[in-house]
């Protein structure tokens, strides 16, 4: 199970990659392993605004549907439309398959997010 450095994580198994005043959001390797083969993705619209913790879409596998929550507040400036036709990319490359790009509004976005080490610990705790 891969956990990348340089990213922040949420307890719901999303990852955040800050890029200045923007950030990319996706789901983690742990999440895609738990889901199995992803066959369907629902993404928000450009311009949608969210608070931290709001549901922003859904990722579905053959057997299960999983809501995706944004760990940070912001306005959607881009969605990764390629995933609509190729949802399997989330399994193949979870950290390269960002779902949305947000213009962040939180001054201190990292607050409330987990570091890679904290996320690893969280996964171990959860799997017990």
């Amino acid at each position: 199970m891969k956990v990348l450095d340089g990213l922040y994580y949420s307890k719901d198994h999303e990852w955040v990659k800050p890029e200045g005043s923007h950030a990319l959001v996706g789901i983690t390797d742990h999440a895609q392993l738990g889901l199995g083969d992803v066959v369907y993705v629902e993404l928000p619209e450009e311009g949608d605004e969210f608070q931290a913790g709001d549901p922003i879409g859904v990722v579905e596998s053959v057997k299960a549907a999983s809501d995706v929550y944004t760990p940070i507040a912001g306005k959607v400036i881009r969605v990764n439309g390629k995933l609509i036709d190729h949802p399997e990319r989330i399994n193949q490359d979870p950290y390269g398959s960002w779902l949305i790009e947000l213009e962040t509004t939180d001054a201190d976005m990292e607050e409330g997010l987990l570091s890679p080490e904290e996320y690893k610990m969280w996964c171990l705790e959860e799997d017990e």
Partner: protein
Amino acid sequence: MDHLHKTAVYPAYGGVGAKIVNFEGWALPLQFEGILAEHQAVRKAAGVFDVSHMGEVEVAGKDASIYLNMLLSNDISRIRDGQTQYSILLNENGGAVDDVMAYRFSGQHYMIVVNAANRYKDIKWMMDHTEGYQVTVSDRSDDVAQLAIQGPKSVDLMRAFIGEEAGKIRFFRFSDSIRIQGVSCLVSRTGYTGEDGFEVYLSPDHAMKLWEDLLEAGKEFGLKPAGLGCRDTLRFEACLPLYGRELTEDITPLEADLEHFVKMEKTDFIGKKALAAQKERGLERKIAGFEIKGRGIPRSGYEIRKNGKKAGRVTTGYYSPTLEKNLGLALVDAGIAAPGNTIEVAIRGKSVPGITVETPFYKKKYQKYLPEPYFS
């Protein structure tokens, strides 16, 4: 996993990367490589399933045939020694206690293969109905392991593995004198995937070795280990019912579009009166196939609506890996069951458009008629 039943093959799962789940109290593989890869392997090459959790009931005695014809929807007198038959074990209301496969050894000796989930219910039901018949009903499930080899390459694989006799076992027939690795096995040309294939019944003592040896021998044919996940998506595409979804104590075989397996001309059988009455009145609801036209995956239990009004529920729904569409089976008002009816499906709070379609979604690839050399 400690409290769960395990099949004789269980120790071998780890070696092929099984993701294990609790299925009806059994620790079984949901998947190995992945549901989509395994599903595709069965459609294009072959997959092997450990289905040892299923139940096997031995029915023997002078009255075995007439007893079974009283309990089962189909007409067992139509099959010969060495033949199998699909049937519904009916309750008094015409609903299903289970759906089963009957294997006839002789007119006085049968094996009834039942769903794992219903094993104890079925045994009790069958034993409760032996009065007046010279018949014994025995639960042999613990003594029988079962592997299913399914897919277009199954025959080539089995011929390479056990010899020419494999190819001689015809569709819905079986041989109980097949020797595999010196072990006596029953092999039938049956399955639950819509593909050609075999089901192998043998002693649990040899099941794990057979599983491992099949996987080895199967490599050159593209054989993959396959789990419960693709077992459900495969049978769903072929529109084979799953007990608990398309058939229940409350859903009759007439409602489940299985009228072909109900032989009303039999003198008498449990549920006959109720089914005759249902047929006379006309069905109020029926299992229908549908396709989603909007975006979303229909799942079991989701509501079906017609013009905003409740008109049924989804019994099974999936993204279909072979057809690459979102499809579903649903128990709906009879008036909208025929193909071509627009419907709405309530998917996670949204009303998604769909349309009823012809079934089966995927045409079964059974080899019902074999080429010349295989008729002995």
